[in-house]
């Protein structure tokens, strides 16, 4: 589609290939990954209200979840 999208597909492709490469952490090397700060949303309740606020003031929406949530649109 756009140049940005092509880059993204490339990045994900390389990421997948790396899934089998030597740079991957072993089972016992995932302590840093297990930190709560590494979560997609470390504070999900705060993330929910922020997203709701942006969604009600901007045209764009859409995220990696399907949870719904009302208008609040004035």
């Amino acid at each position: 589609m756009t140049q940005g999208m092509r880059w993204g597909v490339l990045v994900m492709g390389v990421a997948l290939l790396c899934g089998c490469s030597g740079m991957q952490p072993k089972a016992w090397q995932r302590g840093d990954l297990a930190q709560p700060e590494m979560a997609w949303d470390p504070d999900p309740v705060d993330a929910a209200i922020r997203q709701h606020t942006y969604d009600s003031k901007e045209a764009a929406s859409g995220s990696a979840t399907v949870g719904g949530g009302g208008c609040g649109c004035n």
Partner: protein
Amino acid sequence: MPPKKNPSVPLNQALLALTASALAIPGMSAQAQDLAGDPMPSAQRDSTLLDYRFSYYDEGHIAGSKTSSGQDSERYNVESHQFRIATRLGSKADLTADATVETMSGASPWFILPDAKGKPVQVMSGASIHDFRQALQVRANERFGAVTGSVLAGYSNERDYRGANGGLEGSWDFNNKLTTLSGGVGYTHNDLDPTEGASTRFPTRIAHADNYEVTGYAGLAQVLGGETVLQSSVSFTYQNGYLSDPYKMAYVAGNTVNDARPGNRRKLAWITRLRQNVAALDAVVHLDYRYYHDDWGITAHTAELAWYQTLPWSWALVPRVRWYSQSQADFYQPYYNAAQNNGLYSSDYRLSPFGALSESLGVYKRLGSWNLSLRYEHYSSGGAYSIRSIEVENPALVRFQVFSAGIVKTF
């Protein structure tokens, strides 16, 4: 003889000792650390969590130079109370319920007039709006080995707006738990019963309308080394029904007409999220980017950068910058000098071209099984933040600040 059921070791104490991180706020849904090869992410060690957050949303006044009256006008305020309870059901399932109660008040943009020089000026809704929203979302997750399935349902209720939604989500860990494929489908139905619809005061305002929305997404998350996780997801949404704003009007060659938008909308969002540990500074960087496009002609970019800084004594600081830019909907105009053949009219600032910048700072402090937080955000929108230069800025573009405080208790 079976082993002793209750070992003499104080497990709870031990668990507390290691969640020294100020940000150990459990989210019971799928998270990045699921990829850490841990069937139960660190955050889920506790069996029950209660979370309460109060947020005060305060929209800045609209300046007199942008209103038809020439007077400053106050805008919208929202007080939100969010409650979450999350609990484990056995070793493989958990349940999360989110309740939200909000009170909204203030004035809202109504329509836009051209002034003597053709500059668009805003007419605000006369009376102060008072509304109350309550919403409930429930989500159940169950693990079946490498696969997690989720069912979610919810509703949202305002005096003039009711929505009900349901959805299914799933995720699958493979490649030694280095890769997670996730996806979901959801459906929402909304009913609108606008205040004073079809009244003698607002005879053209609709009395009732409805719409529905079908959404689906698929995403792939990949561990890139011991300190990096990347996720990319594509979400598609189809909306159908009444998608206009029943309270808004548009100025068309000396008259005002109802806001009128197409009866359907197709939205595509492509979201990429990166989480990077910075071991040397005991910090984690979050970088999110979203590309958005819809068939109303709007293209938008959202980029967000957050820095999770762990500090001594279980404190943490989270500065965040978010940038947003959108192009306008094809049919949008601040005001119309002539009737349109397609019958579509909207002067809503949400459909106008603009950009926005927001800065936020969060502070977290963990005290045993309690977690306290404060957050301040300032958001400002305008042509200056847009990716493309904007000829005519919508006068109603918002500026707001949010004060927020949260408290979490785990059991």
